[in-house]
């Protein structure tokens, strides 16, 4: 009799424990799902301007200063258009911004720095991928000549800039990773099985991917990272498609592909199509490149986190002018992340254009901040 009683008690305790654990788990799951949805809603809303620091009189303290911006490549429309928008914004604020035209060759970046030294520029901006570690002697020569050297839109907030530069205007790639992971979580109701496609040689890739991983772990106990594919940029055309196809066939439960840089989509979309997974696997990505927003309009990519190039340009210039005026610099680049999906992709134009669809509150916002209005 005692035995039966003990067995019954043990069973009851076990059942209660199981129910409690399940309740706890489902509670955690619901909480994670709510957190994911909340972040997504925040980034679906049209961007609003919030000042990156106190207002200052740019005309009086930065006027006459000269900035040389060296984009990672003038053939890359993303960095090229940021450079052009910086020149335009600089004209408004009285700062002379010059772009050093190049085609992603470190030897050309070296020429740009030597040009800045010879011409007596006040600040050199290494924009959107110029890695200071490959041109250290030239940076040292520039800083030795009294020129401030800063990187922009290159490091993640969590990364320490190379010791050779005077400062950086970092971007939270980690946060973009969080947005992408939360998108997959919320769209699958907490059942995302993702394949991440990255390029490890790009400096901010590691914190970017970490943002995805941490978020999946924190907000989604039932989600999993099925595979990580590392495809170096020069091999995107030959490596991404077969690797993604293999991952899809080897793991039939994959429902999200996250190519972390959206130009990868060109090779991910055919991989989904050839693997016969159209409609079963969705693509979420980052950059807001026009052709990828076109792919959203065509229903081949589900979402793209974009940044306004005009906003990036003004955010970078704001940081540089504060440096030149001896003011405290903002901790990160002032630019909001905005989600494009089928509901708003047409706002970017048909075909999509750079810098369309984000609104223009940043233009008057920065003008007011700089004392121009």
């Amino acid at each position, binding site marked *: 009799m005692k035995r039966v009683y003990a067995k019954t008690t043990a069973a009851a305790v076990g059942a209660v424990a199981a129910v409690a654990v399940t309740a706890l788990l489902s509670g955690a799951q619901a909480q994670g799902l709510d957190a994911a949805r909340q972040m997504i809603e925040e980034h679906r809303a049209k961007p609003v301007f919030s000042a990156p620091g106190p207002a200052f009189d740019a005309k009086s303290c930065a006027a006459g200063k000269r900035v040389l911006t060296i984009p990672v490549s003038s*053939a*890359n*429309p993303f960095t*090229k258009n940021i450079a052009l928008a910086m020149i335009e914004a600089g004209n408004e604020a009285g700062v002379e911004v010059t772009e050093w035209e190049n085609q992603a060759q470190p030897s050309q970046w070296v020429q740009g720095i030597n040009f800045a030294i010879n011409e007596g520029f006040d600040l050199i901006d290494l924009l959107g991928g110029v890695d200071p570690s490959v041109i250290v002697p030239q940076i040292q020569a520039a800083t030795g000549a009294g020129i401030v050297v800063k990187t922009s839109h290159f490091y993640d907030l969590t990364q320490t800039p190379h010791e050779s530069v005077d400062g950086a205007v970092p971007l939270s790639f980690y946060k973009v990773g969080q947005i992408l992971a939360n998108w997959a979580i919320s769209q699958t109701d907490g059942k995302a099985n993702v394949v991440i496609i990255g390029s490890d040689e790009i400096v901010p890739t590691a914190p970017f991917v970490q943002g995805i991983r941490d978020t999946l772990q924190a907000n989604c106990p039932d989600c999993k990272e099925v*595979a990580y*594919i*590392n*495809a170096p940029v*020069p*091999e*995107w*055309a*030959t*490596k991404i*498609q*077969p*690797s993604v*196809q*293999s*991952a899809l*066939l*080897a793991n039939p439960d994959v429902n999200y592909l996250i190519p972390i840089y959206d*130009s990868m989509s*060109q*090779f991910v*979309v*055919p*991989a989904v*199509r*050839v*693997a*016969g997974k159209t409609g079963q696997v969705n693509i979420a990505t980052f950059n807001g*490149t*026009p*052709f*990828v927003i*076109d*792919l959203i309009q*065509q229903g*081949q990519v589900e979402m793209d986190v974009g940044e306004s190039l005009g906003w990036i340009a003004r955010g970078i210039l704001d940081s540089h002018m504060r440096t030149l005026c001896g003011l405290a610099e903002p901790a990160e680049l002032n630019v909001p992340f905005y989600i494009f999906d089928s509901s708003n992709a047409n706002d970017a134009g048909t*075909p999509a254009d750079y810098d369309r669809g984000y609104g223009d509150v940043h233009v008057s916002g920065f003008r007011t901040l700089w004392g121009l209005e």
Partner: protein
Amino acid sequence: MAEGTEVSAKEKGVDWLLVLEKYALILAWIALIVVFAFVAPSSFLQWPTFSSIIFGSQAVLVVLTLGLIIPLTAGDFDVSVAAVLTFSAMILAVLNAKMGLPLWQAVLACLAMGLIVGFLNAFFIIFFRIHSLIVTLGTASVIQGLILWISSSQTLSGVSPGLIDWVIVNRLFDIPLAFYYAMALGVIIWYVFEFTPIGRRLLFVGRGREVARLSGISVVRVRGVALVASSVIATLAGIINVGTTGGADPLSGLTFLLPAFAAAFLGATSIVPGRFNPLGSIIAVFFLVTGITGLNFLGVDTFVQNMFNGAALILAVSLSQLVRGRKEQGLT
């Protein structure tokens, strides 16, 4: 003396080492499939693995390689093929997706571009007697500039869905049609190489220009035809590339150059050892992609793919050289 040698070869019977060399790549391919089938039976040993990955996704590389082996056989290097491929893809995307021209007109424009580039290559190589490597390197660079110019350095998407349907969406035995286009081209080139006078002349010209000229072969014409053919076939590869990706970008197509050369050289160790041959090239592409796919299924890091490609090429060519008694070989 020659007669005597022939008789002694006949007396010896079949040279099994040479037969083995001929089919070694096929055997290695089968061995690779067997190994992966054992290691990852549930994922690798499925028809979709072969239909969509191994056969279905390499048409661009196969077509480009097939084009490349034509001037290689005639003794010329054409390193502009990948640039022509990318240019063709971009012209198609600009004309069709951006300017709204019908697909057939855009395709004709691509083919015309291929013809022009081929003629220009041939003109500078043959008339000025400049090494093909130098001329095609220059042409490739000019074309890359033109690509950046006409594309404004942007990736373009939105080509007619009809092209995508007829390249990768429509299938036969679950294999995208692009595979059959590549195979058809392979059969045509194989027929031309093996059974037509121009095929034989290509080989003679490649083996010894002076001897070919003294034998009455129009070396100029043969080399010219080969260079034009490789450019035109590269434009076809570009069209298939657009049909595969649905768009075009200014840079990524250029990365097909080295894999195409690797497949051509690897293919030259098989089927007709010592000669660039279409069947060997096709098998080489599938051998390499099988290895990479298997490694993908095993979850091996992607850098291993590069090592596999390079090691396979060096090993195959080295073994082939051993079989031939390590005779000195020219590049072509």
